[in-house]
């Protein structure tokens, strides 16, 4: 349990002990303080030990009140709540010895419970005073402490630990368990505080909380962790708090995972030339940039990115004042920023005048910025940059690669950097069962399926004769997902997310696939892909609307969705116009399955018929929808425009298959037949007129009044009947209710 204090929000119980300890501390104070100067590091560790030790030995010498010295407590730790807790269990003999070995001085003890409160308050005051003094004397040291704390990594105990071996600090079966509790996302921290307050409140009551600690991790939303001996104790602690869902399971965290829960991962924010970053603020917010160089202190980096120069500055009048113009353009950029565009000398000169741009070697200087090869080169502070989760998309990188004249500029971009960037992310997206291949190191060329992943090491089950079932462990960064042409894949992240398709080619880590929906080729990084069994259903449904639905846009206009994007549609309306529509702009979906239209020969046009235009371009297609008996929306994948959807007049169509119209009708009816519903009407055509009217209940359509029950007195129309009950559409509220026929009365 390392780094506990960072996440410890509270300990319940045992407040009193803390105060007694502080008292003790006063006495012990000076010599220890000296010591602190020498080995901050060790002290941090010791203080850790204490926390653990407390947990452990408390059980044994429960009963005799014990003041533990807190002398080595870090100055910072006074912000933390309270440690030490009460516990009934008995355990940890070894560690207890260890602890006593370090010379605990015991005992103050005698306070009766009633007094403790007073003592506590007094102690607090004293403590505060002492710490104020302390702060005054060695601010520098405190600062050092802080920076030391900040620098600590998860492997804090690996140093020379002459006192306690790390394994003894690891939780064992004898320790209290850690329980994961589901909470309302976003409320984790509040709830931990609530738990703490509850613990303090109930501390001296009959039923103090039995939990030992609670904490949350920002990286794990929707859950908090509670340390306790049993799930019941956790449950008790959680009852009455809003936002905790113990009913969704209080899950025991396996011992081996406890330590890792408390580890703090050090953010690796090193920047090297060539790294991709994103700009956080200003005109270039969100833009991708490449690091060129770094200043010595590491605070500023030189970036290269695609400029956004305003080629339509608003105050053209003040041609002389370059400065003013600049101010104007930057202001404008906040409201509407100019598009990304490579620096073009001629264009800029045309707008800003020759004076505004000066040329030096290969570079241009314009408005105090340097431009080279069309890119802007500019220094940024590191804090203004986003270094992690950059995820450059292929498009952006391609844009970089292309250079300003649109041609290849291979020398400029080191593809290995992209690979590097994508690889880093790739580690996190591997899953057991994935097909991977090793592309560097000794095992290069080996491929197989991922068996398990531990931290940065993946165990793979290689495919091939020579391996014969043995497993190989490979650093995760040396493997990448393996796809081969013909695989059906799904994009997990990025702008093409949820797209599925068949892989047509694989080049290094770039996979090109043919999208199922658009029939276009899409190139993405293999890290963003997953093998998919299902066809991309996600991509063609947005809201309630689906690809190729006939939708009503406004009173006059109807259209067919031919392309779905993340949250919008492209719709071809009856006039052949393409519109970009948000779901909320669609008033309704129209069902044209019963719409009637006739083709040029007077035959009925049905949805799904294969037809051809008799005039115009004589396009062929399958009927998707008909609208107002006049327009027909056809679909033919061969036409690249509008996803193969086009609109034409129904009158100019002719069926491709020579159809005996009557025969077709007959068979179609039969195929659709659900005689119980269609009322045998279709069957009637074949010459048995009698059976047509059978199923229809004469009550249907009758106006009735409800004479009993909660809806008594309401008027309605019978929509359907089934045995003794009827479904009645009420006139009020347009509601359909199911009601006993006996409760209805015929209304004239």
């Amino acid at each position, binding site marked *: 349990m390392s780094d506990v204090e960072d996440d410890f929000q509270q300990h319940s119980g045992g407040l009193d002990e803390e105060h007694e300890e502080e008292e003790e501390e006063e006495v012990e104070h000076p010599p220890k303080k000296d010591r602190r100067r020498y080995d901050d590091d060790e002290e941090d560790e010791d203080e850790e030990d204490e926390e653990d030790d407390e947990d452990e030995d408390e059980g044994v010498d429960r009963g005799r009140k014990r003041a533990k010295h807190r002398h080595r407590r870090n100055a910072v730790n006074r912000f933390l709540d309270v440690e030490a807790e009460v516990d009934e269990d008995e355990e940890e003999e070894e560690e207890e010895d260890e602890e006593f070995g370090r010379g605990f001085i015991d005992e103050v003890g005698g306070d009766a419970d009633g007094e403790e409160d007073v003592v506590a308050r007094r102690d607090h005051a004293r403590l505060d005073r002492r710490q104020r003094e302390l702060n005054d004397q060695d601010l520098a040291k405190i600062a050092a402490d802080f920076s030391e704390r900040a620098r600590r990594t998860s492997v804090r105990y690996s140093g020379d630990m002459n006192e306690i071996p790390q394994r003894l600090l690891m939780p064992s079966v004898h320790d209290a368990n850690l329980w994961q509790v589901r909470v309302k996302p976003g409320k984790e921290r509040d709830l931990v505080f609530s738990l703490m307050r509850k613990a303090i409140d109930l501390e001296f009551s009959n039923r103090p909380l039995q939990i030992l600690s609670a904490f949350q991790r920002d990286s794990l939303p929707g859950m908090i962790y509670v340390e306790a001996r049993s799930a019941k104790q956790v449950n008790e602690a959680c009852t009455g708090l809003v936002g905790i869902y113990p009913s969704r399971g209080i899950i025991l965290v396996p011992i081996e995972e406890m330590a890792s829960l408390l580890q703090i991962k050090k953010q690796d924010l090193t920047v090297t030339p060539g790294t991709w970053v994103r700009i956080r603020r200003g005109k270039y917010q969100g833009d991708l940039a490449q690091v060129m160089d770094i200043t010595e202190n590491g605070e500023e980096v030189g970036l290269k990115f695609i400029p956004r120069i305003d080629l339509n500055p608003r105050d053209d009048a003040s041609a002389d004042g370059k400065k003013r113009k600049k101010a104007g353009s930057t202001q404008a950029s906040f409201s509407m920023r100019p598009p990304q565009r490579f620096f073009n000398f001629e264009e800029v000169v045309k707008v800003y005048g020759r004076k505004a741009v000066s040329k030096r070697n290969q570079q241009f200087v314009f408005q105090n910025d340097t431009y080279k090869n069309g890119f802007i080169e500019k220094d940024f502070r590191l804090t203004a940059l986003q270094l992690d989760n950059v995820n450059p998309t292929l498009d952006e990188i391609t844009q970089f690669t292309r250079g300003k004249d649109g041609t290849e500029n291979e020398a400029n971009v080191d593809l290995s950097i992209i690979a590097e960037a994508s690889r880093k992310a790739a580690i996190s997206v591997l*899953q057991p*069962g*994935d097909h991977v291949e090793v592309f560097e190191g000794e095992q290069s060329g080996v491929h197989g399926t991922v068996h398990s992943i531990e931290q940065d090491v993946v165990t793979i089950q290689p495919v091939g004769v020579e391996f014969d079932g043995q497993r190989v462990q490979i650093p995760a960064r040396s493997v990448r997902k393996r796809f081969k042409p013909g695989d059906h894949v799904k994009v997990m992240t990025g702008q093409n997310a949820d797209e599925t398709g068949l892989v047509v080619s694989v080049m290094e880590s770039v996979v090109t696939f043919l999208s199922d929906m658009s029939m276009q080729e899409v190139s993405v990084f293999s890290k963003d892909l997953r093998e998919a069994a299902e066809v991309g259903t996600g991509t063609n449904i947005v809201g309630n609307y689906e690809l190729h639905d006939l939708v009503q846009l406004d009173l006059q206009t109807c259209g067919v969705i031919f392309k779905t994007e993340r949250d919008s549609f492209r719709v071809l309306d009856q006039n052949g116009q393409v519109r970009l529509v948000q779901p909320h702009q669609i008033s309704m979906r129209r069902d044209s399955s019963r719409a009637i239209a006739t083709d040029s020969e007077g035959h009925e046009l049905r949805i799904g*018929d*294969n037809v051809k235009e008799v005039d115009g371009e004589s396009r062929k297609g*399958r009927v998707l929808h008909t609208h107002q008996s006049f327009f027909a929306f056809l679909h033919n994948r061969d036409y690249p425009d509008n996803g193969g959807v086009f609109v034409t007049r129904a009158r100019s169509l002719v069926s491709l*298959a020579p*159809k*005996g119209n009557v025969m*077709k009708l007959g068979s179609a009816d039969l195929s659709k037949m659900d005689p119980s519903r269609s009322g045998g009407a279709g069957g009637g055509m074949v010459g048995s007129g009698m059976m047509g009217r059978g199923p229809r209940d004469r009550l249907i359509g009758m106006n009735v009044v409800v004479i009993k029950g909660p809806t008594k007195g309401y008027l309605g129309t019978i929509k359907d009947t089934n045995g003794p009950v009827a479904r009645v559409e009420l006139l009020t509220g347009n509601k359909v209710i199911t009601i006993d026929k006996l409760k209805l009365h015929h209304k004239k």
Partner: protein
Amino acid sequence: MTTRLKPRSQVEDEDASALKLGAEFNNAGCLLISEVKYLLENRDKEAPDTAVYNKTLEYVKTFAKFNTTDSASAVRETLRREPALTQFETAQIANLCPADSDEAKSVIPSLVKVDDDRLQTLLDEIQTMRRFQS
């Protein structure tokens, strides 16, 4: 850490080059394109107006190698002489009519088990039949 990732179940790959056609088709009777053509053209029922049907009819008319039922069954008879051939391989040979054993083994990789000379003899016979069908 929170959700256990289960290894995805691996579906057994279908692979025609290794004659793995899946449970439903491993022992199913294969039809030559020529036979399909015959069956479709001599249907006693009305032809359904479906895209699938129409495209298939067009396809088999284009690629049928043997125009009569006689020649098609003669081809089958010939290929039956080679007992190692599966239904699928028989149909593939008759549909694709490779000229030599090299080409045959390239387009139908599972034929490696058949001796080159014997395969060549079969292929030659088929070519002859194809040339001289009435």
